[in-house]
């Protein structure tokens, strides 16, 4: 960076003609000269110093170096203990990491996340629109939904759905207040563990995503709607083409927070003895007594899923930031390519 000599050109013509000596860069007299207070010499000569011959030296940051070294030492210690402490039982972790039962649990976890995430956001979108409508009933219903599902523990919601058969023995579809029934079924056969898990996670997710989507829609400038209305663009296209793409920028970071939370949140359905990743791992360590290594297996899988989602998040956010920033920053891949390209050029010289 400092390969090219950096000099400062003093635009004021030098009247006193104090010669610029390159060796005196750090000496104090130069600083004293530039201060307006007279220090014995003629005060009118002070601003006339020519600094053009001096080299610029960036400020040093010794504290930064000390901090870096300390953190590096700490990291090394943690890694060393992870690698050398035999009680982590990395062999057991490796043995179970890709075991069939664990992989099956992983698939169940992904299934639950995908289904309840997708349904939750669709329902949340509907709730957000209701909340933004001008009908007091729709606003009230949407508000109440969010209020109830955000104020009860997910655990209670799940157990409630699973035990719905206790409250309502049969579920039927018919004409209300008459005896006409088109369809009737035992609640316990309808609400399986899977159904209870999806119901609980979806409804809970919808309550949160409704607020996220509403926030995103509110973040779009009112002028955008006015401009679209003035152009005669129909309501549906106005929302999908003008408002939502801009709202996405505010929605995405929190939405991904929610989805990542949901990935790990699915572990709570172990209370329904549903064999997703976390429950599977519990079953295994109850049998083998290798508690910590098996918890590590589950943890590592959660880390993997979150990492993949984070990459998706980066690129999706980038897609929606078109036009929001003057020029899109380079992706890490592009940066790496540029780095190697420029270094290859240097080596060939």
């Amino acid at each position, binding site marked *: 960076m400092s390969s090219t000599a950096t000099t400062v050109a003093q635009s004021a013509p030098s009247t006193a003609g104090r010669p610029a000596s390159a060796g005196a860069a750090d000496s104090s007299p130069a600083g004293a000269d530039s201060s307006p207070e007279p220090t014995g010499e003629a005060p009118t000569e002070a601003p006339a110093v020519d600094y053009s011959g001096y080299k610029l030296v960036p400020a040093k940051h010794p504290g930064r170096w000390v901090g870096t070294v300390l953190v590096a030492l700490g990291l090394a210690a943690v890694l060393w203990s992870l690698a050398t402490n035999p009680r982590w039982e990395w062999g057991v972790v490796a043995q179970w990491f890709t075991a069939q039962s664990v992989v099956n649990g992983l698939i169940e976890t992904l299934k639950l996340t995908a289904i309840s995430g997708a349904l939750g956001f669709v329902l949340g979108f509907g709730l957000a629109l209701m909340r933004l409508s001008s009908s007091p009933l729709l606003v009230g219903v949407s508000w109440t939904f969010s209020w109830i599902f955000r104020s009860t523990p997910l655990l209670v919601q799940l157990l409630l759905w699973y035990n719905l058969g206790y409250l309502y023995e049969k579920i039927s579809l018919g004409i209300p207040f008459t005896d006409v029934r088109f369809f009737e079924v035992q609640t316990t056969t309808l609400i399986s563990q899977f159904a209870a898990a999806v119901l609980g996670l979806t409804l809970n997710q919808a309550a949160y995503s409704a607020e996220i989507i509403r926030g995103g829609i509110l973040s779009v400038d009112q002028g955008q709607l006015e401009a*679209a209305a003035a152009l005669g663009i129909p*309501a549906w296209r106005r929302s999908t083409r003008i408002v939502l793409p*801009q709202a996405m920028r505010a929605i995405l970071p929190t939405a991904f927070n929610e989805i990542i939370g949901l990935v790990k949140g699915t572990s709570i359905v172990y209370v329904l003895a549903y064999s997703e990743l976390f429950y599977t791992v519990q079953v295994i360590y109850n049998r083998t007594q290798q508690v910590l290594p098996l918890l590590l297996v589950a943890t590592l899988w959660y880390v993997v899923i979150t990492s993949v989602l984070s990459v998706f998040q980066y690129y999706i956010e980038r897609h929606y930031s078109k*036009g929001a920033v003057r020029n899109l920053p380079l992706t890490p891949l592009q940066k790496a390519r540029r780095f190697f390209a420029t270094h290859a050029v240097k080596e060939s010289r």
Partner: protein
Amino acid sequence: MSTFVSESTTTAPAPSAASRGHVEITNVRKSFGATEVLKGVSLTVPPGGVAVILGPSGSGKSTLLRTINHLEKVDSGYITIDGQLVGYQLRGNKLHELREKDILKQRTDIGMVFQNFNLFPHLTALENVAEAPVVALRSEKSLRKPKEEARKRALELLDRVGLKDRAGAYPRQLSGGQQQRVAIARALALNPKILLFDEPTSALDPELVNEVLDVIRELATSGTTLIIVTHEMGFARDVADTVVFMDEGQIVEQGSPQDIFTNPREPRTRSFFSKVIEPAFNI
């Protein structure tokens, strides 16, 4: 930017354009809460006319402009364009507000340019201009490729405002003056009878004002009816057929630029000009 009659447009040619765009505002009233911002305003702008509305801030200029395309609902009074009611329909002895769909259709005849441009930031200049035509052309079943047709028209319009080479740029990559010119092209995209300008240069740096005013000046000779709210006195004098001076929700006086600027009858008008006109004429 030589001619404003684009050859390839399938709609009616220039001669008939002069016979459309007659705006009649009759006794319009509008309140926001307890404050009445329009106190019975009536104004006629003939087809192809250029009306400039002047007045201090808070005088109801912008609100009046926004009632013309029903962005603001009136409390009483009515507005017609070429004899057709805006936003309402006479049924029996009542004026019923139109459904949103029909209002949107009416608005395609009325272009609007905003103070803050309100370009869609996630769409390129070309996409901004093509957006409304894409919707409109989709309903024309004879067209096989509405999107391509709309883009072709949009490019012609950008050429008209001198920004053909910036078609692929996003609004934030353009200067304020360029953004406003794109916004004008966007307002022109549906070949409107009337163009409304709501302080089109108020958000611009002084050196960018003229590039926008030049575009509007050219439009003034094109036969489209223009209604302009502005603070640019010199420009108003140049371009207007009718100058309207508003204060406190009422039209204080109106007339030719000559009358209003050199011989204002009302003392209120005179005192307003004495405050604003000096710097404006130095341009």
